[in-house]
C-alpha cells in the first residue's frame, strides 16, 4: 500500500469528525428518552457522512444524509411520537437564554460560510481524490465511478433489490394493519 501524506487540514477534520461520531454514539446509547437518542444518532450519521466525503466517497456521503439521516431517522422519530414514547417536554423548543444564543450563533456562522463560498469569485474546487479511484474519478466523476459497476457487474443484484423493497412495502402494510379492520 502506498504511504500517503495528508495535509493537516485533512487530518484535523478526519479526527474531529471521528471523535464527534464516537461521542454522539456514546450519548445515543446512554440516553433514556428515545427522542434524545434518535437525535444523537442523527448527529453520528452526519459525522459519518463527513468521514465519507473525506474518504473520497462524496456520493455516498450525500446518500448518507438523504437516506439515513433524512429518511430512516425521520421514520424512527415518527414511530416514537406515534407511540407517544417521548415526553412532551423534551420535544419543546430550546428554553433559556444560552441555548437560544448558541443556536442563533451557529445558524449565523453556517449562513456566513455558505455566503462566503458562493460570493467569492474563486471557483470552489473539491479535492481530487488521491486513492485508488483517482483515475476513474477524473474520467467519470463521483457518481459515474459508482454507477458503472452498479449497472454492469451488479445489475442483477440491483434489480433484485427492487423485489426486496416491494416485499418490505407489502410486509409493512400487512404488519401495520389492524386485525379487526374489516370487521368495522
Amino acid at each position, binding site marked *: 500500500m502506498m504511504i500517503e501524506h495528508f495535509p493537516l487540514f485533512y487530518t484535523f477534520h478526519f479526527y474531529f469528525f471521528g471523535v464527534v461520531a464516537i461521542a454522539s454514539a456514546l450519548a445515543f446509547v446512554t440516553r433514556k428518552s428515545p427522542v434524545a437518542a434518535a437525535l444523537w444518532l442523527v448527529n453520528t*450519521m452526519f459525522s459519518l457522512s463527513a*468521514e465519507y466525503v473525506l*474518504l473520497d466517497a462524496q456520493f455516498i456521503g450525500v446518500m448518507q444524509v438523504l437516506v439515513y439521516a433524512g429518511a430512516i431517522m425521520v421514520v424512527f422519530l415518527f414511530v*416514537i411520537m406515534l407511540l407517544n414514547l417521548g415526553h412532551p417536554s423534551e420535544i419543546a423548543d430550546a428554553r433559556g437564554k444560552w441555548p437560544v444564543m448558541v443556536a442563533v450563533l451557529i445558524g449565523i456562522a453556517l449562513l456566513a460560510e455558505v455566503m462566503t463560498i458562493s460570493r467569492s469569485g474563486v471557483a470552489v474546487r473539491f479535492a481530487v481524490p488521491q486513492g*485508488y479511484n483517482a483515475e476513474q474519478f477524473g474520467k467519470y466523476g463521483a457518481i459515474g465511478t459508482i454507477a458503472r459497476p452498479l449497472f454492469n457487474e451488479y445489475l442483477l443484484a440491483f434489480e433484485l433489490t427492487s423485489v426486496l423493497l416491494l416485499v418490505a412495502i407489502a410486509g*409493512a402494510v400487512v404488519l401495520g394493519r389492524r386485525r379487526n379492520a374489516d370487521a368495522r
Partner: protein
Amino acid sequence: MLAESLALSAVLFTIGVVGVLVRRNAIIIFMCVELMLNAVNLTFVAFSRYYGATGQVFVIFVMTVAAAEAAVGLAIIIAIFRHRQSVNLQNINLLKG
C-alpha cells in the same frame, strides 16, 4: 487513514452491539442495529478508497436493505405496541423457552 477508519468503525460497531445487549427499549435496540450497519458502511468506504469503487456499490445495497428493514421492523414494533401497550422487551417474552 485506513487504520484510523477501521478503528472508528470497530468502535462504533462495538457501541452498537453493547446497545443491543444492554438496552431494553425495542426502538433503541433497533437504532443500535442501524448504528452497526453504519459502522459496516464505513469499513466498505474506507476499503473502497484503496481497492476500487466496488465497496461503494455495496454501501448502496446496505442502505437499501437498511431502509427496507426499518420499514418492516417499525411495523413489527407498532404491532407489538398495539398488543402489549409497551415496547419494553422485558415484557415481551412469549418466545422465551
